[in-house]
């Protein structure tokens, strides 16, 4: 994993570099520090023909270009690299970092010990993330993009997908939220073996079915929602559910 550090204060830069390097040397020797910069221009010129996997950026870089802009530039080159902000600015743009440049974390420079702990914690999560990306584990998730932030939703958490009447908007309902995106139900239906088209405008996840009511023609899901089911789907659903139970 390649790491870039950008911090304009020389002492803090040195401290940051030392802490991270010390931790990496013992625990993850494969980590490589490819650039320790004090100006965003250095990072930009590096980006022209190189790539890194993890960036530590100071928000208030002294040269007028603040960390957010630099992060946006990095994102343009590389949508998946981990970006971690380091700031002494308590009114940090928390949500903006998260959704605009998909920052992995941001650390506020407070007391010494808590800072080091947070720093290492963020570093570890970026390493874990890097390894996961390498093993292609993301295929077990349904991905939703909100701004630049990509949310991974485990398939088993999904209750159903539903189209709205007039647009190509699809609404996904899962354990921890409701999300909307553009797409086609037909493509979603084929995405996973437990997805089942119960109705013209709905795909349910068979993993979360609690009850099939043939008389009143609905399927009840684990979150209590009752989905209407078409007559044709009713004929297939029991079979599908059984098949699914056997496979699991």
């Amino acid at each position, binding site marked *: 994993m390649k790491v870039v550090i950008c911090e304009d204060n020389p002492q803090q830069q040195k401290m940051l570099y030392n802490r991270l390097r010390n931790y990496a040397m013992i625990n993850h020797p494969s980590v490589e520090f490819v650039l320790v910069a004090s100006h965003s221009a250095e990072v930009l010129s590096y980006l022209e023909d190189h790539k890194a996997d993890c960036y530590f950026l100071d928000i208030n870089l002294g040269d007028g270009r603040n960390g957010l802009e630099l992060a946006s530039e990095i994102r343009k080159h590389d949508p998946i690299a981990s970006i971690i902000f380091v700031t002494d600015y308590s009114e940090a*743009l*928390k*949500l903006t970092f998260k959704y605009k440049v998909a920052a992995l974390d941001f650390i506020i420079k407070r007391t010494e010990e808590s800072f080091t702990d947070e720093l290492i914690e963020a570093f570890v999560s970026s390493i874990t993330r890097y390894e996961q990306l390498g093993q292609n584990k993301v295929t077990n998730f349904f991905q939703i993009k909100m701004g630049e932030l990509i949310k991974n939703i485990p398939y088993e958490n999904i209750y159903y997908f539903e189209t709205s009447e007039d647009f190509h908007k699809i609404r996904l309902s899962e354990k921890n*939220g409701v999300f909307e995106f553009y797409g086609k139900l037909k493509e979603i239906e084929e995405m996973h073996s437990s997805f089942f088209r119960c109705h013209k405008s709905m795909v349910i996840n068979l993993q979360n079915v609690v009850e099939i009511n043939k008389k009143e023609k609905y399927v009840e899901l684990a979150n209590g929602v009752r989905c209407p089911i078409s007559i044709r789907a009713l004929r297939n659903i029991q079979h599908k559910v059984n098949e699914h139970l056997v496979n699991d």
Partner: protein
Amino acid sequence: MQLLIAGLVELIGIFWAISYTTQIKLSIKRILFYILLSMGPAIVLLQFVGQWQGIIYLIISSFTYFYWLSKSFLTLIHICFVLIFGVITDNLSQYVMTALPNILPGNLEHLCIFTLLFVVSIIIYQHSTRKIYNLIGEIKVAYMLILFIALVTMGTFYINLYLTDYLSKQNLLKFNIITQITYFAIMLFVLYFTIVTIKKENHYRKVEFETAQYTEYMHSLELINNDMQKFRHDHANILVTMQGYIEIEDFDGLKTYFKKHIFSAEEDTIKRNMRLANLANLKITGIKGLILTKTLQAEKEGISVHIEIPDEIEELSMNVIDISRILGIFLDNAIEANIENNENKEIDIAIFHSMSGSTLIIIENTISDNSIMINQIFDEGYSTKGKNRGTGLSTVKSILKNYPNVMLNTDVNNGVFTQIIEVTKSEGIR
């Protein structure tokens, strides 16, 4: 003789239909008056002068008479529709007659079928339009338009029916073309007029709303200004007190005083200035006023509000009223959720442009109990017959149905509840 009976039946039918649709109570006196003033002369004209003169007299006298009786604009509309139905069912009954076997002598059968069709269509009309007229309520322009359309349609029908008898085949064609084009042009004009009116109405509503928001915004600014003034007043006091400590050389006292009073006071001021500075990037006054007002309201409840607007936001591809309603509901929900919370009362608001050019509006708040919130949302999922728990979310959904360019994401994670609205640019929706 037969013609007279037919005419009489039609007249009685029309008279019944008018009184039925307009719900005017009829006494014998009124009926006699009507026969004397309207029907009698009309029949005389029909018999001795000409068909269309009689019809015109009948129409005009009926209009005047019933309008005089009811003093209601709606009556005129009803009469128009009754007459239109008269023409349509008359034609229809002639068509039906050709399809049915002859049981009764020609004219009688026509009369029976006509009466039946006419009565049925009037009853259907009465029942189906009552709701529409209730809906229109007091909007005068709408009645004018409906009356205008009904009059023009009725006029065209009758002209087509009676005047064409006087024309030769060559002239008939010309005449038909003229009436059709005129009718079409008038309808286009009505359509244009309707659109213009709706647009004006919308614009007026928007301006009114913005003014209200702006007033509220000014009011919030005033409150903040008052706070500042109070602080300035305190400032003088603080200096005097400090001087007191220095004079008696009580430096420990000075230290605690400084930490306790000055530091916290300064922090408050900085926070306040920060908030105004953050809102400066938001150029849509309606939303700005709303956020500021709700922020002050939240802070009164002891919730700390944090606003991030790093980019200049000048425009959203959404109607200001709609987005304000949505944000109002979300912020109210956020405040409500936090009031139940004991510690960590916090609301974060962020508005910025994403890298793909869309605009994101995010409202995040802490919640006390994960499960309760999730149920509230999921209970009213769009397909199910779930109940509305009064969170206003169904309102948000119904507003967003009109916006294919807006995505709403709701996320509940580790005691943090997030609403993310993504507005992509779109043409044509205002």
